[in-house]
């Protein structure tokens, strides 16, 4: 296990895990820009069912299509969360009625138990561990773009293990919000990836 933090994208069999190819680089850029965390300059793509998953403290999982984990993927996901990992599952459709949301939440509850996915209060330390987000998860420009459910989702959901968030579930479509080249940030008044920095800092310190 290296001292550098390597941000990983989870590869799972049933869906389009690669739908946000620019997100890892953008997040790495932000972490390097704002923090002194030893983050590797390049991310990794790791199978959800593979042992390599356990070598990464931060994993991103996203997609548009229905999610059906294999038994091996489910087992490994449970092991990863129980052993201190932090995985973000983000609905690339931002649609609570959509196939990704319905199937992903089903799979999460199938793995961790009914009711395991709970609403994360907007006062959680996740929102203040680096940058402060007083109103909870920052809105994205995609939630109200007419696609998906066209709703603003005010909360994130989480599977909590031993007092720490092990799996974070989002309908806010950060996969679309952060899926751009890092150089584009210089054209933005507010860097939208700052919340991603909070996620990585949380993963590295909790």
């Amino acid at each position, binding site marked *: *296990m290296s*001292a550098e*933090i390597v941000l990983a994208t989870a590869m799972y069999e049933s869906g389009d895990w690669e739908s946000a190819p620019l997100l890892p680089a953008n997040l790495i850029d932000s972490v390097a820009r*704002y*923090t*002194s*965390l*030893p983050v590797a300059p390049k991310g990794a793509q790791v199978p959800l069912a593979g042992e390599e998953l356990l070598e990464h*403290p931060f994993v991103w999982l996203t997609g548009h299509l229905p999610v059906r984990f294999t038994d091996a993927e489910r087992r490994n996901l449970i092991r990863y969360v129980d052993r*201190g990992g932090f995985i973000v599952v983000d609905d690339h459709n931002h649609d609570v009625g959509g196939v990704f949301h319905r199937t992903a939440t089903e799979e999460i509850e199938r793995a961790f138990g009914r009711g395991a996915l709970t609403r994360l209060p907007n006062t959680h330390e996740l929102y203040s*561990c*680096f940058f402060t987000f007083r109103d909870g998860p920052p809105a994205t420009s995609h939630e109200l773009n007419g696609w998906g459910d066209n709703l603003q989702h005010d909360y994130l959901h989480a599977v909590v293990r*031993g007092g720490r968030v092990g799996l974070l579930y989002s309908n806010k479509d950060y996969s679309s919000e952060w899926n751009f080249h890092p150089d584009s940030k210089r054209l933005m008044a507010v860097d939208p990836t700052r919340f991603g920095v909070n996620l990585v*800092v949380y993963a*590295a*310190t*909790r």
Partner: protein
Amino acid sequence: MRRRGSAFGAVLGSLRSRLSASPRLFSASLRRAALERGLRAVALLSLLALLLLSLRDLRAPSALAADDVDGTRGLRAALARWSTREAPASVRVALDAVPAPVMRDWIAALAGAGTRVAWSGRALPATALAVEPVADPARPSRVLVAAPDGRGVALEDALGPLDSLSARGGGAALTALDVRGRVRARVAGAEATAAVRDSLVLRRVLVLGRAGWEAKFAAAALAERGWAVDARLAVSPAGDAVQGSPGAIDTARYAAVVALDTTAARLAPRVAVYVRAGGGLVIAGEAAATPGLAALLAAAPGGAPSPPGRFAADS
């Protein structure tokens, strides 16, 4: 000459005249006088006799030999005798077994009363026992037994047997998770008992390091063990990610500071003050090379480990 004779004669004459004057008076008073004189004489003679007897005892004390005490079995009778009928100047006791605490206290009291006491017990195994608390949230106790090499040591507490050990290097040691009441150590018929007397206050642990796997899991492992953990993890030049409620680094708050890497150098002066006040410091990895913390090390890292302690903890 003429005067003395005349004085005696005058007394005698007076006596004769009294006798001739009152015969009843003479017999009652004389009898009474004689009785008084006789009783006085008896009292004086009794006192003289007692004085002579006591002087005789003081002048000729008895010194009893070791053979007078037949091992431990006859010790009680001998102690009773020495404490009552006899008052020996010195005694010597040969013990074939460890005497009961009452007997030991009695022998000590005899010595305190002025009798010189010497004892020997070649067959007795030298045994000592100490029980001390361990600084661990699980609250175990460390049991240390001194016993001759090769001897079996049976340990038990108020609830029953704890373990059996074999003494090596002068004794044996055991860390027991839950010791209740007094601990007994039996070694070849000898028995030693001890209880945990010290009290221990466990304080928080402060982890200093860079945000990442190592610091995260070090803090988690300590918390799993039961320690209350505060952490200051360097995330950016502007600040740290904190866990718990880190406060002033002093011995009133922290039992130990764990420094994992060079980011602890920022707090090195405060840590140094803390250590000199008696606080504990664990330096790991790169932190050992930090100038501010390296000066606190008892030895340079990278050397050969010290040999194992004298007591072997095994069973």
